[in-house]
């Protein structure tokens, strides 16, 4: 009877963790995020025309201001009509818009394969990655992806072509989470002034990932941390169980009344510390519960450019909702 009750608990937990969508139902996700913009956190320095404000000023049709012609300026930019009216040579200054190459770093280690039956944590991470890719692709940003799994790092370079989102989705569907490889090496060798979104549970090399993210940000890029947390991790079973870390079978901890309370306290403190450390370096941090729709997470991540100045606690997700 206890086994049947335990099975019912797992089924209930599994239903709670049905956060991810199947490949067939991702159309609804893409519909839900249609029109969502993911602006860069700060003006970018790219030269290719795009949707993000550029630090460069060029010959875009949108006028910003006039400036007196100086030697060395391109004579093509002289406003000849103004010169005719005022007999002074001015050049038109316009605000350029540029693209931001976006790279999604997706954690596919063993800790993401949770719960074992539904893999809801992994599927939620996939949906978030596809949603962010779609949003970035809408802004004509090149989108690429690095997936860290048991089979190693699988990298898809940034592309702007039409079917790149579908390619990313198919690549994610082909991957089974597992292994214990670190994520930080996947963030090495990336170009400067890039936008990186790390979708992970940060239970591996979280410190190295944050350090590498800081380096990218210092080089002019921007990094978004999307912390995926399963509901079973936030509310573990109340019955007596022996919890085993899927990435380390030797790490087994019993759960009963006292240890459960201590677990909740420690886990909350760790999440607060993780959030504070990311934000302290000017990085974006978003907590994503598996049970909430992926479009909500995508909208929060995309809106981070507007709220970077505001400190949002990691557990205030429901308030944001």
């Amino acid at each position: 009877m206890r086994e049947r009750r335990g099975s019912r608990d797992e089924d209930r937990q599994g239903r709670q963790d049905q956060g991810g969508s199947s490949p067939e139902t991702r159309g609804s996700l893409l519909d839900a995020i249609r029109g969502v913009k993911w602006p860069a956190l700060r003006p970018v320095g790219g030269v290719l025309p795009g949707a993000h404000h550029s630090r460069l000023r060029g010959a875009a049709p949108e006028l910003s201001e006039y400036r007196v012609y100086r030697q060395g300026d391109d004579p093509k930019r002289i406003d000849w009509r103004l010169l005719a009216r005022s007999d002074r040579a001015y050049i038109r200054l316009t605000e350029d818009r540029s693209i931001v190459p976006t790279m999604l770093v997706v954690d596919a280690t063993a800790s993401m394969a949770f719960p074992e039956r539904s893999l809801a944590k992994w599927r939620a991470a996939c949906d978030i990655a596809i949603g962010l890719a779609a949003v970035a692709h809408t802004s004509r940003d090149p989108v690429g992806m690095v997936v860290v799994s048991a089979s190693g790092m699988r990298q898809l370079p940034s592309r702007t072509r039409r079917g790149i989102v579908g390619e990313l989705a198919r690549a994610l569907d082909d991957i089974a989470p597992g292994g214990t490889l670190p994520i930080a090496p996947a963030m090495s060798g990336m170009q400067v002034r890039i936008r990186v979104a790390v979708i992970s549970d940060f239970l591996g090399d979280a410190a190295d990932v944050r350090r590498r993210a800081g380096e990218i940000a210092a080089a002019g890029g921007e990094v978004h941390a999307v912390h995926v947390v399963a509901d079973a991790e936030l509310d573990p079973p109340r019955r007596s169980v022996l919890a085993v870390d899927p990435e380390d079978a030797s790490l087994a901890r019993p759960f009963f009344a006292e240890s459960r309370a201590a677990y909740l306290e420690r886990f909350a403190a760790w999440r607060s510390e993780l959030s504070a450390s990311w934000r302290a370096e000017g990085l974006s941090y978003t907590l994503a519960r598996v049970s909430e729709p992926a479009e909500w997470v995508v909208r929060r991540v995309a809106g981070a450019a507007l709220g970077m100045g505001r400190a949002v606690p990691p557990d205030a997700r429901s308030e944001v909702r």
Partner: protein
Amino acid sequence: MSFAAPVFAWVGVAVALALVALHLLAWRRPPTIPLPTARFAPEAPARMVSPAVRPADLALLALRVLLVGLISAALAGPRFPSRAHSTARVMVVDRSHGPEAWSEIDRTARSAFRPGDALVLFDSVARQVRNPTADSIAATTVSESGSMSAALILAIRAATELQRARDSVEIVVVSPFGSDEMDAASASIRRIWPGRVRAVRAGAPPNDTTPARRVDVRARPGDAVAAALALAGTTSPGAVRVIRDAITPVDGAWARDGGAVVVWPAAAPEGWQIRAAIDTAFGVTVISAASASPTGSARPATVVAPFARRVAPPPGQVVARWDDGDPAATELALGAGCVRSVAVDVPTTGDLALTPAFRRFAEQLARPCVSSRVWMPVSDSVLSAVLPASILPDSIVHLPARHDSQSDSSIAAWMLAAAMAAALVELLVRRGAANATA
């Protein structure tokens, strides 16, 4: 099947239940679930106490319950009813005599005892042993004197209870049948029980061959007390010496060896307290002088006559009193015997000493010590009169030794052996389970 000591059976049941409860609360590993954030739980032993609906280690539990059951059953002493025991018996065993007599009583009673018999042990008091075994015969203390009447009352009560479940019940009395154990009520109590009573004499030879000795009197010729004792023909199974003069060291040593020295001085002896006023008493009674006899001669003896009271006897146990209650004779224990001091001044003139009342009075005073262990077995004729068998003409039988109790003892031994075997198997199974777990 019944148990000689059911408390062990109940204890075994309780221990078995406790074992089952412990197996339901065994230390075990709880069900394992994967949890990526398990590292945030505090470290604790992976094994914990957890209740379960089904007991763990059924084989071990069965072996342990079997082990406890065998041990408790062996200690409880199982007994199985037998057709040969359809006749219930009430064993009445005398415990009122010394170790020298007890060894034979014990042996005889054990040989006569059968499982299922009721057991009544008696000395000065009688008590029935619940769920008796052969070993219960020795489980009591030995008192100085015995009361056959009390034992018969309890035996008849036990026999009445047994009669409800058995076809026939008989009472078997194992005793040396000393004269001090019988009283006037013994025969009447025996007649209350209509069934058979078998008297088994053990611990002493029949007194028909016990020689009785005459009382030794040291007095001047023509002494009134000596004449009275001579007329009474007093004999004593113990050693009694009546002296009409002062007690000597030889008399004291003789008393220490177990004799009864009756100091009945003709003249006021030295050391005795002189009464404040010499007066006259008109009666004296012996209230407790010596061990009783089955013939009833230990009745109080009273002499009604004028006696001049000059001295008072030394302090001691009062054995005779004047008509006003003052002590007339006392007894003091000395070694294994006693010294009885009689402060009754027998008049030298007249025929008082020749009267039957005075003869009985002197006879009672010339009996062995109250505390003397010297006892006299009643004769077979007296025993037949007091405890007649209802059917057999010869009620005094000697029972053959039986060995029925050995069968139950062997069952207990086999149970203990099986328990040892179960303990060995349990050890092997436990080691095997530990190796499998490791």
